[in-house]
């Protein structure tokens, strides 16, 4: 069930944190040389960097653009949650992560 409300900046940081934790659980299934693992490591680093940036920046939660982008991110997150816990669906998860990170990067661009 989709909840179409935007996120506060704290909720955004927490949501990214939840995905980081899920990625960590997933990537621990693969050896460091595995291609899936390398991609997951890379995605994890990207999210970690953006989360740190968000932690020290102020983002205006009241703009229409921010609200629209966080609503989109919530949808991406719901889709991601459907597969991220299943190792055998890693290819699908990787595709969804590309979308999720793309949406996070769009939000990050709003930071001053």
């Amino acid at each position, binding site marked *: 069930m989709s909840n179409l409300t935007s996120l506060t900046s*704290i909720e955004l940081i*927490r949501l990214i944190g939840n995905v980081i934790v899920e990625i*960590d659980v997933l990537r621990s299934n693969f*050896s460091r040389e595995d291609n899936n693992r390398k991609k997951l490591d890379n995605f994890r680093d990207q999210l970690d960097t953006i989360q740190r940036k968000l932690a020290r920046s102020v983002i205006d939660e009241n703009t229409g653009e921010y609200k629209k982008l966080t609503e989109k991110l919530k949808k991406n997150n719901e889709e991601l949650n459907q597969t991220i816990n299943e190792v055998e669906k890693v290819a699908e998860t990787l595709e969804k992560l590309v979308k999720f990170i793309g949406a996070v990067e769009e939000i990050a661009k709003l930071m001053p």
Partner: protein
Amino acid sequence: MKIFNLSFLLALLVGCVSPATYQEPIIRFQQASTVVIEAARIDYGSANKLERDAFIDQQVTKQSKIILDDLRNEKLRVLDGDQLAVRMATLDALAKHGELLLALSSNDAPARAKDAANSLDDAILKLNSSLGNAPPSDKIKSNAGGFATIAAEVTKLALEAKIVDALNKAIFASDNQVKDLIRLLKEDMSVLYERQRAKLSNERVAATDTFNIELESQKPSMEKLKNAATKIKVTEDSWEKLPLLLGAGPGIDAMQRAHLELVRYAKSKKEPQDLNDLNSAIDNFVSSVRIIADAIKSIH
């Protein structure tokens, strides 16, 4: 007429709570606030160290160079020194404001309020000085500045022994500025917690990797496997305890509740039940803070 005056005075005395009764909640509020401030200082202080360590761990995993320039890069910091100073000065001023509010509400307010007002005055001076250095983008800056202005007016009125005006102004400050400031500090704590969670989550992967790499080597060493397993256990223990490692967060929550009760009490008719409610709120504050104090002891 004399009989009326005497009856009036007696009624006042019966209704009033002795000054000594107020002393205890003031002292306990002060002590509990000190613990919260210390816990927040540790949380804020360790935030940048945590980021630096996470970066070093990341470089080790990637087998990449570690350059000193990277370690001192501002991007690796959640808060710079000036932002940190504002937060500590704000917490200190908030605690002193609570103490003054309580002193203003007591029966011997003029005598008691003077010390508390001087103490708040010192805290505001420090706060104003740190605000001057804080970056304009820091969201706590404008709220703390607004609070410092009103709190300075409260101290002036208290030192001039205009107790009723000072009390009203202190209540106004609490209703309008303190609430927002505490909310911002709580948000800070949530952010720091999330960064700690991300770091620990990464450590879990590193710990299992070490074990699995050894296991898949041509000749796994039992000793190395045992060491790696011990590291996994330690990391998992920390992960399990993560919800308890909220640092100053719960203390700030408790401080907020105690502060609300201080305001409610200041607005009340100061009947015995009001004082009981206040004591009960401060009891809860002290209980929450005791847990934090134990955690701080274990850290040290």
